[in-house]
């Protein structure tokens, strides 16, 4: 997807060896400053980032922002189509619940779960990939076989099964309550770590041969220190890009799970659940189905664009077009 922003000419000029890196005035700018510059050139990504931040804030401050409570009934105002009156911008359902408010609370849960999935799957995947790539040989072989196995699972089915049998209510582990949505997030994370594991493994395999790693080894650094202090910082770009895309996938998959009825359970709000509730009320109340879905599309689209911009900014090796 990265090639959307890359100038045709940029690629070709390089291909014909027309530009000299050495000839360009080199200012002492940090890697991150360059990354920020490249990201800012990706207009769509910048706009998407702003949209995402706004949506995130709305979700985070849902109780203060939503005009009504999540389950607030208004029996005088049932099945209202979208209207400015009383701020029922997304209409109301048959119990008179305000769908704008319900969607805002839904965003809160869905984004939160997706972030948990991204963080956790990245942590698991990075560790597994790093160990496999760093040690190589049998360790690598074993871990990658395991990764392949996870990849060949019928993903959605396994998620559904796991969610049905393990994820339907809050649990208490060692006296700590794990809320049900978090459990759905954990289940998703245990299937989503494979892509980042493969990426990190690939990077580690090539980094292993680099001089600075040799130097660190010669200096007597421990394996853990070399992996996490010396090699990992060189993989941050691709890891961040992948984590971003995981957030988008997690939102879509969680929505599907909740829609089918095995994802996030009431009383927790979730966008997918809102849509299936809306479907249950018949297609006359089209707004109940339309708006929560539209919000999912906007979030997923924005994350994908941000991911695209981040890839251009942080991960030049991922560019498909040579350049």
């Amino acid at each position, binding site marked *: 997807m990265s090639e959307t922003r890359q100038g045709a000419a940029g690629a070709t000029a390089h291909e014909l060896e027309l530009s000299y890196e050495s000839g360009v005035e080199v200012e002492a700018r940090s890697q991150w400053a360059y990354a920020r510059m490249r990201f800012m050139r990706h207009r769509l990504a910048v706009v998407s980032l702003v949209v995402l931040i706004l949506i995130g804030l709305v979700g985070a401050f849902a109780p203060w922002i939503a005009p009504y409570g999540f389950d607030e009934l208004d029996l005088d105002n049932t099945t209202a189509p979208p209207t400015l009156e009383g701020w029922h911008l997304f209409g109301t359902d048959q119990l008179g619940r305000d769908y704008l408010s319900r969607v805002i609370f839904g965003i809160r849960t869905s984004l939160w779960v997706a972030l948990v999935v991204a963080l956790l799957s990245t942590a698991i995947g990075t560790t597994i990939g790093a160990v496999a790539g760093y040690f190589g040989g049998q360790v690598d072989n074993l871990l990658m076989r395991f990764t392949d196995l996870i990849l060949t699972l019928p993903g959605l089915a396994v998620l559904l099964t796991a969610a049905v*049998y393990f994820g339907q209510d809050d649990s208490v582990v060692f006296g700590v309550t794990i809320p049900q949505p978090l459990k759905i997030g954990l289940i998703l994370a245990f299937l989503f770590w494979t892509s980042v594991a493969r990426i990190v493994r690939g990077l580690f395999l090539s980094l292993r041969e680099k001089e600075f790693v040799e130097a660190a080894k010669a200096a007597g650094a421990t394996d853990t220190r070399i992996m996490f202090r010396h090699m990992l910082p060189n993989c941050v770009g691709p890891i961040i890009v992948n984590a971003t895309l995981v957030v988008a996938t997690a939102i879509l998959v969680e929505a599907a799970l909740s829609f089918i009825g095995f994802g996030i359970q009431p009383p927790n709000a979730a966008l997918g659940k809102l849509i299936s509730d809306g479907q249950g009320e018949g297609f006359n109340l089209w707004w109940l189905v339309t708006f929560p879905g539209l919000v999912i599309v906007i979030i*997923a689209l924005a994350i994908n664009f941000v991911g695209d911009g981040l890839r251009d900014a942080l991960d030049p090796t991922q560019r498909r077009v040579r350049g």
Partner: protein
Amino acid sequence: MLQYVVRRLLYSSVVLIAASFLVFVFVAKGAGDPLAPYYLAPNIDKEGLERIAEAKHLNENVFVRYAYWVRDAVTNQFGTTLLTNEPILPDLWRVMKNTLQLVVVAELLAILFAVAIGVYSALRQYSVFDYTATTFSFLGLATPVFWLALMLQVAVVQIYLHTGHRIFPVANLNSVDPGSGLSFVLDRAHHLVLPVLVLMVASIASYSRYMRASMLEVINSDYVRTARAKGLPESKVTMKHAFRNALIPLVTLVALNFGALLGGAIVTETVFSLDGMGLYFVNALNVADPYPVMAWLMITATMIIVFNLIADIAYGFLDPRVRYE
């Protein structure tokens, strides 16, 4: 080559058997007693439930239960369902046939469109067509499948409410009285239009991006320049030299995806109430019956393994650099 296939299948069988045990423990333990909810129901035939528990060996430990399950799976076509004691395999065959119809049609159409769109986008990079295709594929990838299906249903219903015309059925595989012969086929096709459309959107969005990226990489390659320097006409340069190479990665993606889809387009089948693998699985989960869930998982996992193998073989067929060891 044959040796490679045999070894891969043997390896896969071992993995499958190990996985079946893990899944069985997972399902059996996770659910606890699958009959528990029914004991709580009023007016329930308690003795009947106990007979079921006895017949299904629910009171044994999990290893014994697994052994019984294996016996049933091998000798008795995956055994019978928990409550109604119906044989599982005939149902599975029926829903698989239906899923096959849906998935094969949708994927074939999707591949045709996606390859055409991807190749044309790459050849006309940064054209209006390319930007349009890119925009739509981003949209396609960001749209939840179930929501797209619902929106199509909403649209069809709204059209009906306003004009009185039902342009497409929004549920089921057939009308109540589909007739036979050609009228049956037409009725089925009419019912499949919306589900196929929904499945196609998702597949086209990802395949066309993939094809575009792959084609772009190839048309900027040195060997395509060589082909051009040779004096080949542009059509031959792109369709013979570039296309053949660009297709290689897509074949793998499609084969893997197809294997997974044979487990049923779970979401699509659920929304359109299609009697396919996906809906069968969701229904089995809903009644918490471990036996059809197990049977479904085994069949689907086998499909995925087989299509993984097909992907690898196709890869080797298209790319002479690949050798099977």
